Each structure stands twice: as C-alpha cells, then as structure tokens.
C-alpha cells in the first residue's frame, strides 16, 4: 500500500476541521459553544494560510480574529445574558428560504471554482512575505491603507467617547 502524502492528509484534516467546526457554529443551540467552535474555524484557516506560505497573514489571522474579534464576541455573549440561568441559546428561523439562498450561493461558488483558470506554482518560494506586504501597503496601496486607518481611528475615538464617564 503506497503511503499517501502526509501533506495532503493534513490538508484534508484541516479542511475537515474548518467545515466541521463551522457546521457546529451554525447548528449549536448554545451561543457560547458556537463561539468556541469559531475558534477552531479561525485556527484552521490560519493553518491554511501557512500552507500558502503566507505566514504573516496567518499570524494576523490569529491576532485579529482569535485574540480580538472572538474575545469580543464571547465577551458580548457573556455580558448580554444573565449568568444565573445560563439560557444562552440560538434558534433557527426561516429555514426554507435560508436553505434555498445558501443552495444558490453554493452553486454559484461551484460555478466560479470550475470556471476559473487557477495559477499553479509548482515550486513556491520559501521566502518571507512581510517585505512584499510592507512595500505594497506603503507604496501601491497607500491611499486605501490610509483611508482604512482613518476609519479605524474614528472608530477608536467614537468608542472612547461612548465609554467616557459622565461629566456634569
């Protein structure tokens, strides 16, 4: 029996993890359980980025989504419900239209996947992507970068305004 390529096996395992945990996110009746499943989804996606030799993006994925957004999600779920009776649940509504809509989306995606001419690089360079990212961000994409910065800055100031103590 030929030994299958472990890289492929690992990739398939990761895909399984992502899809499985994403499924858990949607179906779990407990919101906190959903949020925890999301953790595995994010981790799996970070691992996929590593497969693409995008180590910087992978680390960013963990920092932003796991360390930031997921924390805030769990934080919000915890704080907006009573802890005493722990009835944090989510329900499904409008199942039939939802299934139809997502089915159409799935078909569209398949269509896109099979009709795209994928560029396959057999010998990817094992070099850091950080330098390229930095040069692109501060060169070609400087304007979008700055616009996003201003958006974030205004969000920051807004948050500070909202959370300020009441001043008489």
């Amino acid at each position, binding site marked *: 029996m030929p030994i299958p390529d472990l890289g492929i096996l690992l990739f398939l395992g990761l895909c399984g993890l992502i899809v499985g945990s994403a499924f858990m996110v949607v179906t779990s009746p407990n919101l906190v359980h959903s949020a925890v499943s999301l953790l595995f989804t994010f981790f799996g996606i970070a691992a996929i980025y590593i497969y693409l030799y995008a180590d910087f993006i992978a680390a960013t994925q963990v920092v932003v989504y796991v360390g930031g957004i997921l924390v805030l999600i769990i934080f919000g779920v915890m704080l907006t419900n*009573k*802890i*005493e009776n722990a009835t944090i649940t989510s329900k499904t509504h409008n199942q039939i239209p939802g299934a139809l809509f997502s089915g159409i989306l799935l078909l569209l995606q398949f269509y896109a996947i099979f009709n795209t001419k994928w560029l396959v690089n057999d010998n990817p360079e094992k070099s850091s992507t950080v330098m390229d990212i930095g040069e692109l961000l501060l060169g070609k994409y400087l304007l979008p970068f700055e616009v996003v910065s201003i958006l974030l800055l205004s969000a920051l100031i807004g948050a500070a*305004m909202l959370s*300020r*103590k*009441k*001043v*008489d």
Partner: protein
Amino acid sequence: MYKILDKSIIGADEMVLNMGPQHPSTHGVLRLKIVTDGEVVSHIEPIIGYLHRCFEKHCENLSYEQIAPFADRCDYLAAMHMGHAYAISVEKLLGIEELPSRVEYIRVILAEFQRISSHLIAIGVFGLDVGAITPFTWTLRDRERIIDLFEQVTGARLLYNYIWPGGLAHDLPPTFVNKALEFLDYFEPQIEEYNNLLTTNKIFIERSADVGVMPKDVAINYGVTGPSLRGSGMPFDLRKDEPYSIYSKFDFDVPIGEGLMGTVGDSWDRYYVKVLEMKESIKILRQALPQIPDGDVQSALPKKIRPKKGEIYSRYETARGDVGFYIRSGGKNTPTRLKMRSPAYCNLSVLNEISAGWMISDVITVLGSLDIVLGEIDR
C-alpha cells in the same frame, strides 16, 4: 454631558452577589449582600450573626468573675482592652474609686501594647485586602513579639483574663520592663519600614486615597468611633476626652486624618491614623514603663463581687473605638442585665453609606479600613 443610557432601554439587570460568609476578605464570617452593576456596587447589606454566641444573655447566668473571660472573647484581637473595659465597669458598679497605682500603670502599659498589636493586625490585613502580602507577615512577626511579652505576663497568648475587677491576676515578672523597652527600641524603626513598603507606595495610595470618603458628619451620625472616626478629622478619643485609669498623667496626641493623600476621611486616612496611633502608644509606653511604682496588685481585689442594686454605664477606648458596658445589678452575684455597645458593630453600619457607588475592590478596601472584628459585632 455624556448621558449614560437608561438601563431599562437596553434591558440591563443588576446582579446580587453574596460575599461571604466564607470569603477571604470579610474578616470572619460576615456576609455582604452586594448589588452590583458590572463592577460598580450600588448597594451593600451586611448580614451578621454567623458568630452569635448570646454573650449578653449568657452573662446573666454567670457571676461577675466568670464574665471576664467571655468579655475577652468578644474582641479577640484586643482581649486586654475588653478585659480592662469590663473591669472598669465592674469597679464602677462596686464603687471602687481608687486602685493601687501599680495596678493602673500595669493596666495602661498592657492596654497600649494591646493597641499596638491590634493596629498591627489592622495594618497588615488592610495591606492584604489591597493585595500586598508581605506587610501582613511583617506585622504579624512584630505582633508575635508583643504576644510573647503578654505570654510572659499573663501566661496566655491571645485571650488573657488578666485584668480582673479590682486588680490583676498576677504581678509583673521582674524582667518585663527591660524586655518591653527592648521591644520598643526594636519596633520604632519597623514602623518606618511599613511606611516605606506600604503607606507611601503609589499603588497603595491609588487604591486607598479618595476611596470610601467618610465625612465628619456622616461618621458622627452613624456613631462611628475609634480610629475610623479620627480618620474623618474628628479628634475624639476617650483617653483624652473622658480620661479613665491614669491616662491624664501621660502626654500624648490624638492623631486625626488630615487628607494628606486625598480627601479627609478616606480609607488612607483611616489607615494612617492607626500608624500614627502606634507611635503615640509608644510615646505613652516610654513614659509609663520607667515609672511603674511598687505595690501589691491584688490589695484592692474584692473578696466577693456582689454589687448593690443599681446600674452603670462605662466607656472605654479600645483599638476599634468606644466600647460601652451597661450593667444592671439586682444585688446578686450575677448581673440582671448586661449590654455591650460594640464599636465595630457601629462602624460596620456605615459601610453602605460610604462604599456604595464604588467598585467591588473598593468595598474590600473600605471594609479593611474600618477594621472590624466579627467576634465583637456578633457577640
């Protein structure tokens, strides 16, 4: 300017939190029912009685001599003070005016040592409440030395039953004065160490200054006494204002809170008054120790305590404040009614007034600065 959202709109609820009866910082089996909004405390209700021992009712079935050890057990951190307070009240009931001056000197010396040891606990535990663990072990180490002195004098380390109505249980051992002076020489620099480690620490000041401010009028309205009252800037000390025993002979000051680090009457002031009071106690001890007169400590001891019909109320300044004994005698060897006004009980009642609106951590700080003893509150 910035309106906080109406809670009813976003459907936020307040949470009731039970702090105690088993909690590291309630100083015993006190239970605090805290209503919190996030970290901010909106209402505190102290629930007491977990240590209730029917002290007052029990005393009606005990002879006057037998009450003395139970009085000690009320405030177990300042047992000498409670014994002294009870002895003074029974002497008043019996009409004993004059005691041998050796007795008075020994009583005052031991009471001041007890004040230092009790304040050491208060300081160390307050440090523990705000998170500093090292000052606690240092103060307990020094308190241990005072307890050694007490053990030498009385034979017991915590609950002494040494001061009896009309006299003392034993005389002082001959080496006591030297050992006591030795201790004072050792102890004075230690206070500076505590100050360097805790009192002037920036984090400690941030945690305690301006927190739980108790204005003078609030303190008086709630009947707060002792260092907590003096921390609010009210120079009221029974040792000065209604001198009992021989306190009028000594020269000492009554330290009050001055708001050095924040507002007058904050937790830091209540804490610092205790540090200053230890210094004043050392002052009294330095005056009293060399001039203990000779004499028999048991000459005024009544053979049998059977007071005439009547009632008295006597007050005494313990380490925690003004303890009062009301005794009504029916002419028997047991009191027909004994009522104790305990200082920590009155001090605790002010908790909600001064710490509502602060955070959970601050409730602990305020509670620590009030320096309560549950044995005395529940009796």
